Structures are given as structure tokens and as C-alpha cells.
């Protein structure tokens, strides 16, 4: 009797759960799979499969606009993510040991760029730059990207610091390391995986950004998402499928890297 009750009671075997999960993953992954499949489609009509081909990738790589856009994307993402990571690391390290009145306010402030819908700070910053008479372009895009990359770098670093045993730093100072030496010999090496993981996430977020770049960009700051958007708006071409697929693959490899770096090795 108890055997039967246990089987019915076991939530692992409830009907419908598996079905919902299969539906969920199909919903999430099927469009991506179809997009990637179509990027290898020889046919120009985009949505009807004829035969396998690398033509669209070749075309994409020969397109100067795409190469320029990719260059801009990488430049912006590299500068924004490294700058944001340095700034975020400094703040996170200090926040973990400091106690001051505005501490909660600062925590809220750091999270602000990811709390509000992106369109709002994007147009607000647009008006800010325009009112100051600053010409929109790569510079304005990079500054705005730094601002919204900070929380993405800050939060994982802060989390890692929270998980760190405060006695390790005490042990270092007990063993004659000055606070500066203790930071470089103990805190930083232990924090490094968190920092790298945060930096990669910030890099992806910057690389994938559309809204902020769209409103704050100008001539010469076209990134890949902006280029893809303009192509999609004027009419779908198979080339878009090829660049889009490449962007997806890049993001997927980077996020895998970030999760690999950020995994907690001390836990088993």
C-alpha cells in the first residue's frame, strides 16, 4: 500500500510536467534552430529550404559594412566591458568592507541601469548629450554602455566577495601582509574568476545591445545589431540569417565561458 502511495505522491512523475517542459524548450530553441538552419539555405526566399550552402556567410564576410559594424561592436564591447569591470571591481571591493550612511543608496544606484526599462535611460541620455551640444557617435555610445555594464560586472563580483571568508584577509594581515599586500596576494587572486566572469557578461550585454546604441549612436557608430535591424526593416535577406547565427554562436560561447569561469570551485 505504502508503495503505491509513494509512486502517486512522487512529484517527479506527474503527468503534464514533462509535456510543459518539452513545449518550453521547443518554444525557446526552435526559432534559433530554424534561423541557423536557414542561414545555410542556398535559396534566396529565406524561408523555403532548397539546398545546403555557405554562400551567405561568404557574402557576409565580403560585405564591408558588416565588417565595419563588427569592428565597432567589438571595439565598443571591449572598451565598455573592461572599463566597467575595473570601476565595478573597485566599488565592490570597497563596499564589502566599508560601512557608511549612503551605502544602501549606492547599492540601489548601481542596480538602477538594470531596474528601469532600457528605453528610458537611453532617451534621457540622448537629451542630456544633445543639451550639452555633444555630437552623438562612438564616444557617446561607449559612455552609455559603460554605465549599463557596471551592474552586470558589479553584481557577480559582489556575490563572490560575499561568499569569501573574511578570515582569509585577517589571516594575511596576521601573517605580516599590509592591507595593500593582502589585497593583491589574497583577495584579488580569489576574486579573479568572479571578475573575469563579470567582464565576459558585461561584454556580451554590450555586444548585444540595440536600444541604447540605436538612440545614442551617430554616423560611424553602426554596430552589428544596428546593421541587422536596418536590414530587417528594409526587407529580409539571407545574409541577415548568417550574421545573426554568428552573433548567436558568439554569445553562446561567451556565456559558456563566463559560467565556466564563474563556477564555484570550492563547493563540491
Amino acid at each position, binding site marked *: 500500500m505504502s508503495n503505491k502511495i509513494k509512486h502517486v505522491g512522487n512529484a517527479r512523475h506527474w503527468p503534464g*510536467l514533462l509535456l510543459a517542459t518539452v513545449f518550453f524548450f521547443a518554444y525557446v530553441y526552435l526559432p534559433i534552430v530554424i534561423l541557423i538552419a536557414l542561414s545555410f539555405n542556398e535559396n534566396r526566399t529565406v524561408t523555403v529550404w532548397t539546398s545546403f550552402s555557405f554562400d551567405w556567410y561568404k557574402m557576409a564576410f565580403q560585405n564591408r559594412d558588416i565588417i565595419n559594424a563588427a569592428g565597432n561592436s567589438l571595439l565598443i564591447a571591449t572598451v565598455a566591458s573592461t572599463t566597467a569591470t575595473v570601476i565595478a571591481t573597485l566599488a565592490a571591493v570597497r563596499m564589502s568592507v566599508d560601512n557608511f550612511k549612503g551605502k544602501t543608496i549606492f547599492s540601489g544606484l548601481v542596480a*538602477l541601469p538594470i531596474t528601469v526599462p532600457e528605453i*528610458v535611460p537611453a532617451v534621457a541620455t540622448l*537629451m542630456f548629450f544633445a543639451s550639452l551640444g555633444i555630437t552623438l557617435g562612438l564616444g557617446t555610445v561607449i559612455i552609455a554602455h559603460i554605465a549599463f555594464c557596471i551592474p552586470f560586472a558589479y553584481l557577480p563580483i559582489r556575490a563572490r566577495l560575499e561568499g569569501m571568508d573574511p578570515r582569509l584577509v585577517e589571516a594575511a594581515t596576521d601573517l605580516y601582509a599590509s592591507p595593500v599586500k593582502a589585497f593583491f596576494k589574497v583577495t584579488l587572486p580569489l576574486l579573479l574568476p568572479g571578475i573575469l566572469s563579470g567582464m565576459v557578461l558585461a561584454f556580451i550585454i554590450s555586444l*548585444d545591445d540595440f536600444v541604447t546604441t540605436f*538612440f545614442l549612436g551617430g554616423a560611424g557608430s553602426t554596430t552589428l*545589431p544596428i546593421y541587422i535591424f536596418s536590414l530587417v526593416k528594409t526587407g529580409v535577406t539571407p545574409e541577415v540569417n548568417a550574421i545573426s547565427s554568428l552573433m548567436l554562436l558568439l*554569445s553562446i560561447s561567451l556565456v559558456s565561458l563566463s559560467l565556466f569561469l564563474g563556477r564555484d570551485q570550492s563547493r563540491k
Partner: protein
Amino acid sequence: MAGRLSPIKIRALLIGPAAAVIGIFVVIPLLLMAWISIQGRDYSGGVIWGELSGEAYLRMIFERELDDSLSVNLNYIMIVLRSVWLSLLTTVISLLVGFPTALFMATRTPKWKAILVFMVTLPFWTNLLVRNYAWILLLRDHGAINGTLSWLGIISEPLPLLHTQLAVAIGLTYSFLPFMVLPIYASLEKMDLRLVESAFDLYATRFMTLRRIIIPLAIPGIVAGCILVFVPSLGAYVTPELLGGGKTLMIGNLIGLQFGAARNWPFGAALGILLLALVMISLTFYALKLKKTGGDTK
């Protein structure tokens, strides 16, 4: 020690840069936006500084006729209401799909849990624009869905799928679904499966167990998930832009328009403030709900 820095100086040196970047390039622009929303409009695209005006807020409901009288214009309010409606719809669909998925994930072995969490997280980090573009390929008149349906002989004419509210709801759900699954999973994962067994042992049916045991335990996750889906849906720009077309604008697109073709900064700023206010209301609701259930999502 020579040249030793005071705690205040260290703080300024380390926390200062982050506070400065976000303060100058996020907070000040937002304050400026609030100020601009009550300024007079310069028709060449900009503001007449110092000329206080409530025109931008009036414009949300009224239209100024040529003779300077006001008449009610519900077009903009409709866009706002549609945004709220589509975001609610997105939240409900996400909950219906996300909850059973989260429950499924929470009842797997640790190894499978890790794999499933990774698979749920992965799409979030891929390009939002590209993922929404993929749906164009599915929803177009000659896209994958219509193609399959006509190949099966179910339809003869392609169904109008793209540029509908349905398309926007599908796209928004698609964009933010992981935000629903992960917090619910997090609250269910802590659950002791033996609780379910003991409920059955005490003569509860499946439905009763779900209603009396599992859902109450998942409430903090459900509330967090709903907020995490609702808030970004409300401010969505890319999805309605790509999948909605001109007829299914949302607040985000209306704001965007004011800085493009319409060139109406005060109105764009006022809509921005409205959107922020809606977000604040949602977050306050969340905070109150969380306090009531006494749960924590961290």
C-alpha cells in the same frame, strides 16, 4: 604610515568612479528628463528652456485643436493600455508555461538540474534582436508556421500572424520567459519532495497538493518571476518594433518616435516619466506582496 589615506578618501577613490559614471550618465539624465517633460516644446526638435508647460502631460489624453481648444484624444492612452494589457498577457502565458517547467526542473537529479538551468539561462544571454528576428521567419506569410500549415493542407490562405498583438505577445513571452522560470525554480528547488509525499500520505489529491503545498511554497518565486517578466515587457522596444509593426505600438516605441520623426522631446520625456511611474508601481506592489508572504527571493 606616511601618506596614509583617510577612509573617506579611499571610499571616494574606489566607490567614487562607479557612483560618478552612473550619477552623471544615468541619474542626471533622468532628472533632466523630468525637467524637460515640463518644458515648452521647440518644434525644430528640442526644448524652449525655462518655459514651464504642462502641455506634454495634457497631450496624453487631449489634443489641441487649431483654435487652441482641447478635445479628447484616446490614441495615446490606448497605446499605454495596450502596453499594460500585452505585458499582463505575457506575464500570464509565461507563468502558465514557466511554472510546470520549473516544477519539472526542481524534481530532477542534481546533474540534470544543472544542465536544465544552463539551458534555460543560455537564450537570455543571446541577442534579443536576433531572437525576435527569428520569429519573423516563423510568423511571416510565407514563414515556417504558415508554410507547415499549408503543406499539411490545414489552410489555403496564409494566416495573418506577423504584425498582430499575438505576435508581440509571443515575442515578449519568448524574450522574458527565463525570468519566470528561474525564480520559481529557485523557490521550488529548496522544497523537500517528501512534503509532497506526506501530503499524499494524508489523503490529499494531486490538485490539493498543488494548491495547498507546492504553490504556497513557490509564491515568492512566482511573485518575483511575474515582476521580472512584467517590467521589461512594459518597457519593450525591440519586440513590438519588429513583430508588431505600426499598428501595435507600445509605450517604448511611442517614446522612441518622439526622438525621431515626431521631434517632441517634452512629450517623449513625459512618456518616459509615465513608464518609470508604472515600473515604480509594479516594484512597490512587489515589495508589499513580498513583505506579506514573508518570502525572500535571494
